[in-house]
Every structure is written in structure tokens, then in C-alpha cells.
């Protein structure tokens, strides 16, 4: 009863605030992790982290960059790079153009030049709205070019991963992007470049098994699922249930694969500190 009234009061407040023109939605959104509904307004204020349980819901690449970069510092790189269909896979082309329509992305990665508190870096961000952020030729090429560009300009490289792994529809060409991207970040790093790898929910398969695991600094968002094989495949293989929290960021931290877990609201501060500690891109 009490809850009903408080919800009603909430809605009234939202409605009145909307009339002031600063809020545009009275929508409530259900958390896919805890199942609880919260006003979209609270999700927005919370950078799309569930106000009830703290679940870091997946977000788009541009939204992420807009929350991290200094205003006015965003310059997109390689924005013409578009996907290919090397296997002539049934229905793949139409799927790609459908997704381009609905997400505004050409493929699952965005790369950009930007600044955090004045410090310049090259960013690449995977977007799980586009075929689960899977890595085909366009994503591989974008990550490789970002690493090469960062190397040439002697800038640090920051990559946010969110991916189901290699993209099935591009077959073996997707697999080869693992070798290509791993080689590109390793070449960048051996030239003295700083590479910060930021893992977000979910990061699995061929992305985990290539550039995403190679950061000089390894960070992750709370609760992010990170692994090579997916939990369902593992359960089918070993025929037993996996322990609570298996393959979550906290679990990886405990097992020595991360430096730190970074809540979404703290990325800017943490990245700023790390970039400052490596001023001149790690070169003295």
C-alpha cells in the first residue's frame, strides 16, 4: 500500500518536473539483473547503472565516450570504415544495414581522439548493441588502426571492450582479427606506448583471447562477465553448476587478472590519474 502511494508521488514529481522542460521521460525501466523497476530519470542520473542493485547495464559507445571525454574534445577516427561480407553469408548484409539504421553505427566499434582533463589519448569502444559487439573484419581493423595511430602520434591507447567474441558471420576472417589486433597492440606497447584495457559487460571469446587481455593496466566495471568460454558452454562441458560469481569482474580480480574494478561514475577520475602517471604516453 505504502509503496503504491510512494510510486504515485514519484510519478507526480516526475510529471511536474517534466513541465519545467528539463526531463523528457516519465518512463520506468526494469533492470535485467534484479528485475526491479526504477524511473528512467534515476537510471539516467546513475549513468544507466541500476539504482536498486548496482547492475551496470550495457551502454552504447558514443554514450560512454560522452561520459568520459572532456567536452568538445571528441574527434572520431575512421568513421567511414564499414563491414564486409567475406563469406557471402545468408542475410548478413541486410542484418548489417538494419543495425546501421537502428544504432547509427557502421559496425560494433567506435574509435576517437579525445582528452580527459586535458590529457590526450586514443580511444576505441566496442558497442554490444551491434551483433553483441562481436569482432569481424571492421572491428578488428578499427582496433588495429587505433593502436597504429596511437603509436604514430605517441599517445596512450584506451580500449573499452564489450563483446560476445569473434563474429560467426565472417568466419575465419573474424578469427584472424584476433591475431591482427593482438599483434597491433603488442607492437604499440613494445614501442613504449601505454595501453589501458577496460572490460565491460560482457567481454568473452575471441576478444578476451586477444587485445582485451593484453593491457598494461587491466580494469573492469563491477559485475562484468569476463571469460573465454561462455558459462553455458562450460556447464555443458563439465556437467556441473558453476559457483556464484564465476567469471565476474570481482572473481577475476581475486584470481589475479585485473588491477582494479572501476564503477561507471569513476572512469574519468581513474583514467585521468593513470594518464597523468604516464604523461608523454609513457615515454620520459
Amino acid at each position: 500500500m505504502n509503496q503504491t502511494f510512494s510510486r504515485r508521488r514519484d510519478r507526480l514529481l516526475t510529471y511536474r518536473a517534466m513541465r519545467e522542460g528539463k526531463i523528457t521521460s516519465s518512463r520506468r525501466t526494469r533492470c535485467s539483473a534484479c528485475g526491479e523497476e526504477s524511473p528512467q530519470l534515476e537510471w539516467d542520473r546513475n549513468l544507466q547503472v541500476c539504482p536498486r542493485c548496482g547492475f551496470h547495464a550495457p551502454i552504447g559507445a558514443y554514450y560512454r565516450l560522452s561520459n568520459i571525454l572532456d567536452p568538445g574534445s571528441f574527434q572520431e577516427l575512421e568513421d567511414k570504415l564499414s563491414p564486409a561480407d567475406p563469406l557471402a553469408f545468408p542475410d548478413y548484409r541486410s542484418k548489417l544495414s538494419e543495425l546501421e539504421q537502428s544504432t547509427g553505427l557502421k559496425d560494433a566499434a567506435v574509435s576517437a581522439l579525445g582528452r580527459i582533463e586535458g590529457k590526450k589519448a586514443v580511444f576505441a569502444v566496442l558497442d554490444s548493441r551491434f551483433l553483441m559487439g562481436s569482432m569481424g573484419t571492421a572491428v578488428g581493423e578499427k582496433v588495429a588502426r587505433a593502436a597504429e595511430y596511437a603509436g604514430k602520434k605517441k599517445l596512450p591507447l584506451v580500449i573499452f571492450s564489450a563483446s560476445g567474441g569473434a563474429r560467426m558471420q565472417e568466419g575465419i576472417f573474424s578469427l584472424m582479427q584476433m591475431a591482427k589486433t593482438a599483434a597491433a597492440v603488442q607492437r604499440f606497447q613494445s614501442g613504449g606506448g601505454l595501453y589501458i584495457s577496460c572490460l565491460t559487460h560482457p567481454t568473452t571469446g575471441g576478444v578476451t583471447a586477444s587485445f582485451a587481455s593484453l593491457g598494461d593496466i587491466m580494469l573492469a566495471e563491477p559485475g562484468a562477465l569476463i571469460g573465454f568460454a561462455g558459462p553455458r558452454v562450460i556447464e555443458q562441458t563439465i556437467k556441473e553448476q558453476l559457483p556464484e560469481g564465476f567469471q565476474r569482474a570481482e572473481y577475476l580480480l581475486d584470481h589475479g587478472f585485473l588491477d582494479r574494478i572501476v564503477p561507471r561514475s569513476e572512469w574519468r577520475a581513474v583514467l585521468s590519474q593513470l594518464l597523468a602517471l604516464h604523461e608523454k604516453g609513457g615515454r620520459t
Partner: protein
Amino acid sequence: MSRYTPEEKVKLARHPDRPGTADFVDALFTDFFEQRGDRLCGEDGSIFGGIARFHGRPVTVLGHRKGKNLEENLTCNFGMPSPEGYRKAQRLMRQAEKFSRPIITFVDTPGAYPGREAEERGQGEAIAQCLALMSALEVPVISVITGEGGSGGALALAVANRVLMLEHAVYSVLSPEGFASILWKDSSRAGEACGVMKLTAQDLRRGGIVQGVLREPEGGAHTDWQAVFRTVDAALTHELAALDKLRGPALARQRYDMFRVMGQNLAPAGREEP
């Protein structure tokens, strides 16, 4: 050449009597000294390797091992490596570079093991480190895909200056069963998946993924091991002689450039950088 359908080739590639890494090591090398362990926490029998002589010359040789009988299958985990295996491989390859030995790898795995402990010890990281390490090695690296080239677990030993493939071997982003189950939620459509995946040696040669296809005897590699050994021996000798003309940094550059362009010609270049 293509009397077999892709689906039939997958069966041939998985044939239990096909020569495996240990058989190639026995037949083509002398003075083999096996190296074991990752020096961190364990030994993984699914990756087999060590130092040997190839026509008198010291080389490092390694590859996936499936085992020939049930007991061996179990110690080799059916050729599905854990992180310890990949870290052992890294150790052997680093040592090869230190002592200027060429590296020869034999690839034959359904994929890296999807198990609980493997994940806990960083399966993804172990594979990623293999890829990064191999991409920069300043010694010649030749890989031969002899049977199943399954996913990242295969690629982890195949970032080579030359990737060769037996005529009926297969190499793919995932097993046809896994592919069908991800894309169509139905692993029984694996046969159909074989058809669209372009996983045969001939398709991969055309796609620029492998640089050579090695003829198998009539009926497949399992019918005449000696013939396969002769073919592989000749191919390795030939490729090694060609790579000997390149110095260390040029070898690393050639390998980097070769993988760098895979899939690149397919995506148009972007606008000029700011």
C-alpha cells in the same frame, strides 16, 4: 581436389588414425628432447613440444596432441589445451628465439578447453599472450594445420610466417557444431554449417589465410602416413630455406604484415586522420 564435401572433410580431419603431432615429430625430426611444464603451476599434455633436429639443424617443435588411445586421450584432454599448455608453448617459443632456432608448429585441436579451472587460470589471457608473442618473434615460424584447426585454441599456435594446411584439414572460427548452435540455436545443423563456413584448405588458400595446401594420399592422410611425412618434410624444407633469407626483424615484419592485411582489403579505408 574437391571430391569431398566440406562435411566429409571435417570427418577426415577428425579421423582417429590421422598422423598427429607426436607422429610428425617421430618421423621428421631426430634427437628430440621433450620440454615439459609452464614453470608457473603445471604441465599440460595436450601441447607437446621440445627441441629437435630437422635435417641436422636444431629447431623448436611443438603442437597440439590428442593421444592415440583412451588413456592418452585423457592425459592429453583430447587435444584441448588449458592455460598451462599455452604458457608452456610461450616458454618454448621464447627459448627458441633466444637460441635462434626456427619454430615449427603442428596444429590439431577441437579448440581450447572450456573448463572451470581453465577459466580461473586465464584461458583468454594465455591465448592472447601466445598471439602477441608469436607476432613479434624474430625467428622463422612455420605452422602446419594437420587436422582440426579449431578456433582461438588453434590460432594460438599458428601466427606463423607460413601457414600450411594438409589437403583435407579444416580451420575455422569455431567447430561447425558450435557455429550452428550459436547462429541457428541448433547444433544438429552442423552439416549445413560446414557448407557456409569456408573451412577447407582450398577455400582458405583462396582467401589468403593459408599460404600452401599439401596433397594427401588417395583416401586421406590416415591411409598412407609415409606419403604424408614425405610431403610435409619437403614443404618444411622448402619454406625454411625461403625464410632463411630474411633476418630477424624482417621475419617479424613479414609475419605482422601478413596478418595485418587479412580482412583489410574487404573494408574500405576511412577518411584522413585528424
